[in-house]
Structures are given as C-alpha cells and as structure tokens.
C-alpha cells in the first residue's frame, strides 16, 4: 500500500469547462485518509477558491475521497475515485474522476483530477520540465529544450 501522507499538487478539469490548480495535504493510517483540499478554478476575472476537508479510504491502489464544500443549507458534496501509481521517474501520482452532488448551482459538475506527491528529496519542477521536454521537437523543428531554456530565462526576468 502506498504512503499518501504529505503534500500533493496538480490540476483538475471539469466537464463544465472549468480548470484549476489543486493541492491536497493528506494524512493516512491503516487505510484511513483525511486532509485538506485546496483548489483555485481559472477562467474568471479572479480564480474561484475552493477549500474543504477531505476524508476517505485507500484500498490497495484505489483511493476514495469525499469532500464537502458549500455552505450550510446548500452543501456541495464531491466524491473522488482514483488510482495511485508509481511514475517511471519514481514519483507517486494519483489520477481519478470526481462526481458532484449539489442542491444549488456549483462551478464543479464532475471531472478529472491529476496529482503528484511532493518529493521528500525536493526534486524541483524545473528539473522535471527539462527532462520531460527533451525528446520533443517544436512545430518549427526547434528543440523544445531550447525553448524551455528561453522560458526559464524569461521567468527569471
């Protein structure tokens, strides 16, 4: 069984067209999981924040989480079912689908969430970006690695 304890970050895409960033802080013991869910949905003048507590179970590689959002009298319940897996780089990822039950209008209708566990070794996203773009050529035949270097230089400015 995987150790889910720690910080997770990733993205969600909703069938309603919304996208956003997701971060999860999880605790896990004997298959019982709980933690804090944070998301920010893009596509607006300012991101829509979503924050709540999650609780669920881990059975083998299958993770089930329930998240309660919304207000009193207008609850929004999000149920997530996903698979935990090892990436070929030795990291741990989760991907799964969520469904939403809401009494009133909710920006979330249902969708997918993809998350990566923060590495205890502190492997930075910059290193990951470099290794992941190394095999791809751009549309104009330009190596993506060269383009990534330009992007990094731009970010530093």
């Amino acid at each position, binding site marked *: 069984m995987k150790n889910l304890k720690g910080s997770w970050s*990733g*993205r*969600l*895409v*909703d*069938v*309603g*067209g919304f*996208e956003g960033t997701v971060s999860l802080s999880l605790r896990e013991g004997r298959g019982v999981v709980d933690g804090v869910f944070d998301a920010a949905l893009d596509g607006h003048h300012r991101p829509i924040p979503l924050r709540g507590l999650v609780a669920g179970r881990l059975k083998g590689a299958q993770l089930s989480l329930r998240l309660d959002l919304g207000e009193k009298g207008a609850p929004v319940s999000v149920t997530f079912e*996903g*698979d935990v*897996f090892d*990436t*070929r*780089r030795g*990291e741990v*990822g*989760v*991907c*799964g*689908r969520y469904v939403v039950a809401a009494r009133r209008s909710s920006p979330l*209708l*249902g*969708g*997918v*969430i*993809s*998350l*990566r566990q923060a590495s205890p070794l502190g492997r930075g*996203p910059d290193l*990951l*970006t470099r*290794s*992941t*773009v*190394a*095999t*791809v050529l*751009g*549309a104009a035949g330009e190596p*993506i690695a060269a383009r990534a270097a330009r*992007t990094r230089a*731009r*970010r530093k400015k």
Partner: protein
Amino acid sequence: MSISGQWEGKLIDVTGVTATVQLALKEARGRVEGDFALYFVPQSEGACCQADRRLAQAGPVVGRYNAKSKTLNIDYTLTVGLKPASVHLDAALRDAHPHAKQSLLGCYRVSSGEADLTLEGGGIVLWQFQ
C-alpha cells in the same frame, strides 16, 4: 449515445504538463478506431492554448466501447526513437450539459516502455460539442 465523431479537450499529466487533445472516433459494435493529435500547452504566463501550442504526438488508436456501462478503453503504442511505449486510457461517457453535448472523462497511464516520454499518466476530459 454514440461516441463516434469529433472530440476535443484537455490532458493534465501528473508531471504538470498540460496538453490539448483532438480525437476522431468511429465506433461499430463496440470496436473503436480513431485518430488523435496532442498539442502541448506552454506553462508560461500569458500563453494561450491555441496560439502557442505545439504538436507533440499524433497517430491512430484502437479500443473498445461498452455501451451498457458507457466506458471506453483505448490503447496506443508509440515509438520514441527506437524505444516503444504503450499508453492505456480508461474513460467514461457522461453528460456535459450545458457546456457541451457530452464528455469523456478518463485516466491514462504510460507503461512498459523505457522511452524518455514526456507524459507519465494523468487525466483527460474530452468534449463533443455537436
């Protein structure tokens, strides 16, 4: 509901890479054939998914569709240099009203390959608008 036709949407990999996806599917008696194109979306600020996207992968796919459970399974084998890698997608069909006519929600995994492929595994949402 049929899954044949044009689909477009988004891919989010656990590595943080995002991409837009176009998929044309033809389904008959549960057998699915199609073609896809994957375009990486730059993570830089101000980048637009259409203007700055770059074709990363395109090719034919085959799979199975279960109309009863509304689930789709697709396999794709690609070669990076001389090294093969396989990609498996499990998706489910669901209503996407009012954003689109219907959607496919799924997760894919890249496996059984030593190729230095950009993607590891993650989620896909595809929409059919017509």
